[in-house]
């Protein structure tokens, strides 16, 4: 479920794969969340066109599809940056200083929930990733960094050339 990683499949194949996922669920409206998961995995985010296609194929009102897609935090309606930092702000990470990491990223990149203008870095927060023993934790492009300090983030940001 590495939602943050960029889709690897070539473009034309992705539509076929989404179609296959829907047919596996017999185009049932009850499988909407599964289908949205697959769509986001394939395309990186849920565009308006994509949502409309899914609504048509599953025979659901577009409002219902948009309603579900916006209800759950996991689904993103905007494209992600090249790199994604997800800062955990669960209780253990909060106690260990997770918000200091959010501040660092907001200072150097973009506000939480947003992507830098050049599309390089997305900054997000998560409600506990369950790695509380490693607090404060950050998921950087799908892998968990443990006991992160603002200095660790500086190093990583410098590596990918964020000014």
């Amino acid at each position, binding site marked *: 479920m590495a939602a943050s990683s960029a889709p690897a499949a070539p473009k034309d194949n992705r539509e076929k794969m989404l179609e296959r996922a829907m047919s596996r669920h017999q185009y049932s409206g009850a499988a909407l969340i599964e289908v949205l998961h697959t769509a986001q995995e394939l395309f990186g985010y849920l565009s308006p066109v994509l949502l409309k296609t899914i609504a048509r194929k599953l025979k659901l009102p577009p409002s219902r599809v948009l309603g579900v897609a916006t209800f759950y935090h996991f689904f993103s309606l905007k494209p992600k940056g090249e790199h994604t930092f997800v800062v955990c702000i669960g209780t253990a990470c909060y*106690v260990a200083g997770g918000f200091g990491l959010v501040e660092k990223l907001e200072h150097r990149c973009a506000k939480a929930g947003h992507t830098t203008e050049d599309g390089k870095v997305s900054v997000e927060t998560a409600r506990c990733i369950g790695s509380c023993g*490693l607090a404060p934790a950050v998921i950087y492009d799908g892998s968990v*960094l443990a006991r992160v300090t603002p200095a660790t983030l500086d190093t990583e940001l410098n590596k990918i050339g964020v000014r």
Partner: protein
Amino acid sequence: MTAEELREKQSEELARQQSLKNRILCCTAAGCISCGAGGLRQALAAQVEAKGLSGKVEVCGTGCMGLCSRGPLVLDTAGERLYGNAAAADAPAIVAGSAADDPKLAGRSIDLQTPFFTRQNKIVLANSGRVDPEKLADYIAAGGYQSLAKALEDMTPREVIDEVRKSGLRGRGGAGYPTGLKWDLVAKQAAPTKYVVCNADEGDPGAFMDRSVLEGDPHRVLEGMAIAGYAVGAQQGYIYVRGEYGLAIQRLQNAIKQAEREHLLGSRILEQGFQFRIDLRIGAGAFVCGEETALIASIEGKRGQPRQRPPYPPASGLWGTPTLINNVETFANIAPIIEKGGGWFASIGTANSKGTKVFALAGKIANTGLIEVPMGMSLREILFDIGGGIPDRKFKAAQTGGPSGGCIPEQFLDTPVDYESLSKIGSIMGSGGLIVMDDTSCMVDVARFFMEFCMDESCGKCIPCRAGTVQMHDILRRITTGEGSPADLEMLKSLAALLRETSLCGLGQTAPNPVVSTLKYFPEEYDAHIRERRCPAGHCQFTPADQEVPA
């Protein structure tokens, strides 16, 4: 596979394991993997190969070994030696069995006779850190699926339910509803279709018990669900697991496939004429989906919004049919109860809280990680004996139950941990997150933090929760920035009562708990913020900064 073949397979695998010189177990739970356990495991396997020890020494990945703060962890079964903070470079010494004597690796060796290990009682976590969660044979060797075989061969569904009732097991998701009673309610419904649902939507921030059980021993949960399906008359189960738990999802998918292949799940379970399928449903990041009616809506592909109860899910749940919903840890307790009997389970714990409880220790504590203790152990023993105490600073509060729970101050450290005692002091057992705070944590800000969480996670269906959490958060934000007034405290109290009594579901009803408990036990901190514009913990920054705040 028949029950007979299952037993044969167990003896075969046990004999194979005993023929080995030793097994080197490498913790590959999410925690250890993020500190490099993957490379370590490969290095260990390569070292075994290089030394020509294949067939004599086996390197296995396992679930969580518990002491996450010392990860990556490696256990050598020869002499039961545990190593912490192990790195790939240590592989030669570990494989040679000389790591404990190597001066360069001093400090890697962990004493298994310390209270962290000796004071625990592992039932749910018995296999975690011992079996390879990706190998069915390993689980079978540890006695896996024998309870399912016993239930199907020797027990009627009624007898299974009676055994669970006798055990006194209560729901481990937090509310503590008697499990046997719930099973009985579902079993009594005369409906052609029923469902068993495992709630693995572990949303409390600071809790990772269920994730560790799913990652470390997925078959145990599947077995518990199949036994439940047999007892209540269901043929289909769903596991609703958080989308954030990638590794748990992957291991569950693998475990389901393995179990189906061997007829331990599916249409011909152990050739006993019982069928039960399990499918995964992946959550999409909504805390409210831990509430059972919201969870059902989410499985049905809708927005995860709760509905009025009754009817409760045992009468009308998934697609309007009787549905049994239990938490991961509850299901993980079932196989041992069927194996050893309800009486055995009831002999552990206190009068009204039987068995053990898994806790995730986190925050300002020396030994962070996963522990399992008998019900009724005091908080002091858990935090100071097992947890190793608070490094450098002074204990201030322990937070249990996440955003629905409360903060427990020092004077209640001797409270036994069971459902009733914790609710008496204004907290709840919750699902098992236990976060320790020292004197650098500001309790007003902690209350604000949890209220912000509830505000974000409120589904918006009922007004008390949707609007009330926003109002309460706004007041708390004002207080933590030095703009609070004494009247705010009265307003907080009255809003808390309103939310508690009029919200539709548990989220809104319990959202005021952290505020109420901090107001009760730390009133002086609220006072200092409001009257003196001072944060005793030195955490809050007041605007404008006209006050010297020590760092």
